[in-house]
């Protein structure tokens, strides 16, 4: 391959973040040809995101770090390029939707126009470009919705569209599918196929090399270096939850529950579901189908507009959230919504403290929760010093330490690498073995069918398998 057609050349790249001893990348070199699709695989912390940021020209101008080496994009060094030089040539899509939207636009359409405005595209051409990309990603129907009212997966597709509409010749993707349901992932994969066929160069980082679509070639990162093959990980031992006072789980009954948000969106429509004590149930469904709205009814974070929720056949109506918390433990989808203490250990012990558990029993719960999530070694750290996937485990540990009768997990596996998913599965199994009821929202069908007794499907606010049979 001639020198001329190599659009991305990374040469001897070493990057060290301030305050970190180990470099995030060490002497990484690779070349990606025009129109090639390169997969970048590796575990959490292997350096994938750092490589993605560097290729997109974010390091060191936006994200401070000490850099040695070069990132040449068609001959321009992204490490030293002035702002604007790379605009329209390289685009980056991140894994979490919350940090990718401007936050000031009132409709998805206007949000997508934001990048085009910065490129100086005439306003008469904008709608055409926006429509093409939103249709391809299956979000055309969301164009007039307010971005902040969308589900995480829907926002992620908007984020993807916001970069693709700008038409970059090099597209960098940092785990863009973490929040997507199977339909969303398929739409993104199809779009990437089209873009690659049209000559876009794609660098795509994922935990798992088979996560999304096709690659021409895969490189594997481990501890900041390119390695020939991914090392096999130490198997996570089966886990057991033995510290609780031995109380049983509780049954959950959802009776004809509907929920309408103040903005008029009807997120739940007459949902009924009974989950027995000690049962593990996964709720799957498309982004925006009402899964999170449903499980928030269980601990009173949201209340049914009509219908009712019963725990062990007692209605939760009128019982405040903090009282329900003694029975229902809820791990949020976004750890940022949940973490607020200055150390992992304090964070995990917040719940037991609030429930009035003190002394050796409380301490045993906290230690057990840390051990289950593999965070014993990080107990002294600030949760914000951990990456997002570990923060999610901190949030999960904080709920486990309350020893809930019913454990509710909202998308517990997003952003986790294979080991992390395995660990979450083992936690589900351990809690169920200890007699607890476990309810999880997930878009990972393989995870749902492997670790759960029953899988129910939500679609547009309805539970599919509870529809009356056709006459």
């Amino acid at each position, binding site marked *: 391959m001639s020198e001329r057609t190599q659009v991305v050349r990374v040469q001897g790249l070493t990057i060290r973040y301030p305050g970190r001893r180990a470099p995030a990348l060490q002497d990484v070199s690779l070349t990606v040809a025009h129109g090639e699709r390169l997969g970048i695989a590796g575990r959490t912390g292997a350096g994938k995101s750092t490589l993605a940021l560097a290729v997109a020209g974010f390091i060191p101008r936006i994200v401070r770090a000490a850099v040695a080496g070069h990132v040449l994009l068609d001959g321009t060094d992204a490490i030293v390029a002035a702002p604007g030089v790379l605009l329209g040539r390289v685009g980056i899509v991140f894994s979490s939707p919350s940090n990718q939207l401007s936050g*000031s636009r009132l409709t998805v359409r206007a949000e997508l126009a934001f*990048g085009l405005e910065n490129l100086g595209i005439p306003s008469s051409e904008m709608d055409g470009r926006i429509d093409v990309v939103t249709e391809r990603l299956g979000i055309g129907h969301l164009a007039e919705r307010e971005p902040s009212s969308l589900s995480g997966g829907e926002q992620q597709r908007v984020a993807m569209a916001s970069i693709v509409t700008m038409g970059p010749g090099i597209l960098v993707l940092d785990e863009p599918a973490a929040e997507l349901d199977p339909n969303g992932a398929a739409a993104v994969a199809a779009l990437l196929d089209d873009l690659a066929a049209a000559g876009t160069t794609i660098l795509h980082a994922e935990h798992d090399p088979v996560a999304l679509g096709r690659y021409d070639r895969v490189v594997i990162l481990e501890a900041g270096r390119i390695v020939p093959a991914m090392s096999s990980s130490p198997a996570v031992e089966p886990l057991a939850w033995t510290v609780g006072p031995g109380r049983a789980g509780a049954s959950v009954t959802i009776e004809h529950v509907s929920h309408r948000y103040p903005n008029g969106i009807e997120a739940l429509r007459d949902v009924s579901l009974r989950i027995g004590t000690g049962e593990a149930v996964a709720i799957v469904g498309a982004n925006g189908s009402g899964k999170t709205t449903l499980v928030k009814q269980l601990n009173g974070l949201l209340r049914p507009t009509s219908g009712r929720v019963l725990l062990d056949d007692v209605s939760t109506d009128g019982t405040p959230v903090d009282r329900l918390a003694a029975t229902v433990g809820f791990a949020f989808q976004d750890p940022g919504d949940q973490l607020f203490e200055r150390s992992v250990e304090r964070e995990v012990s917040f719940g037991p403290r609030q429930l009035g558990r003190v002394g050796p029993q409380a301490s045993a719960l906290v230690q057990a929760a840390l051990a289950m999530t593999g965070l014993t070694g990080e107990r002294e750290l600030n949760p914000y010093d951990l990456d997002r996937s570990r923060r999610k485990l901190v949030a999960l540990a904080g709920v486990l330490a309350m020893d809930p009768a019913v454990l509710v997990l909202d998308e517990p596996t997003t952003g986790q690498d294979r080991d992390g998913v395995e660990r979450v599965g083992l936690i589900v199994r351990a809690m169920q073995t200890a007699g607890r009821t476990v309810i999880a929202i997930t878009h990972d069908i393989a995870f749902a069918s492997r670790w759960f007794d029953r899988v129910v499907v939500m679609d547009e606010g309805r539970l599919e398998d509870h529809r009356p049979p056709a006459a």
Partner: protein
Amino acid sequence: MTGIATDVATGYYVAGSSWLHRRHPLTKLLGVLFVVVAVFLLPPAVSLPLLAALLAGIAIAAGLARSLLRSLRIPSVLVLSIVVVNALFFPGGRDVLLGVGPLSITREGLTFGLVSASRLLVVFVASVLFLFTTLADDLLETLVARGVSHRIAFVVLTAVQLIPRMQHRATGILAAQQARGLSLGGSLGRRIRTLVPLVGPVLLASLVDVRERTLALEARGFGARPGRTAYRVVPDSGLDRALRMALVIAIVAVIVVAITGVVR
């Protein structure tokens, strides 16, 4: 996260289509500037009642009287303490109106306190009317279109959205704490003890937010090159241009009057 706080993009905006809503952001911004200049440079006995009446009239005409009254809770403690502290401890106070033990309320102190507090209130009301009727996004577009640097425009946008964002965060963290057994009921002291530990995490989360939004704007090329176009043009009318001209003249006039001391 369907349905949670759609308030960040809209900020303090109160949906409506009143005369004030339809004015160009720059016109309103100049209006606020005029109020600030007039309130501090003109004799308070004339300017304060006039401006207060003017703003009250605008608020009522725009259908914002109720929202405005509710917002006045925010500066109430500060305003009250300015009056009380000055009434009691004004250094130049001689004319004692009322003695309360070792403390005495002086006429000079009371006057100074009332004037300072009223000035603050008038400026607050003008700013709130601006925020109630102006979309943050319109403000951003206007500033950028007028050649204000992207950096400054981003800072202004962040400032306008800061409090709604922090409220959003605080609500989220509070819900998370309740979900882990935190009880919000009980005595005032208990409530305060509940809220104080929130300050740190909310500030931290806000800083993380700003950092993440910087990445988002960077990825979309905000400010990266000149020649930016606009998808939606913020409407600007002849009336707005005339008003802005009038406001600029008025601001200059107030400054001239203040410097030359024509009105005393």
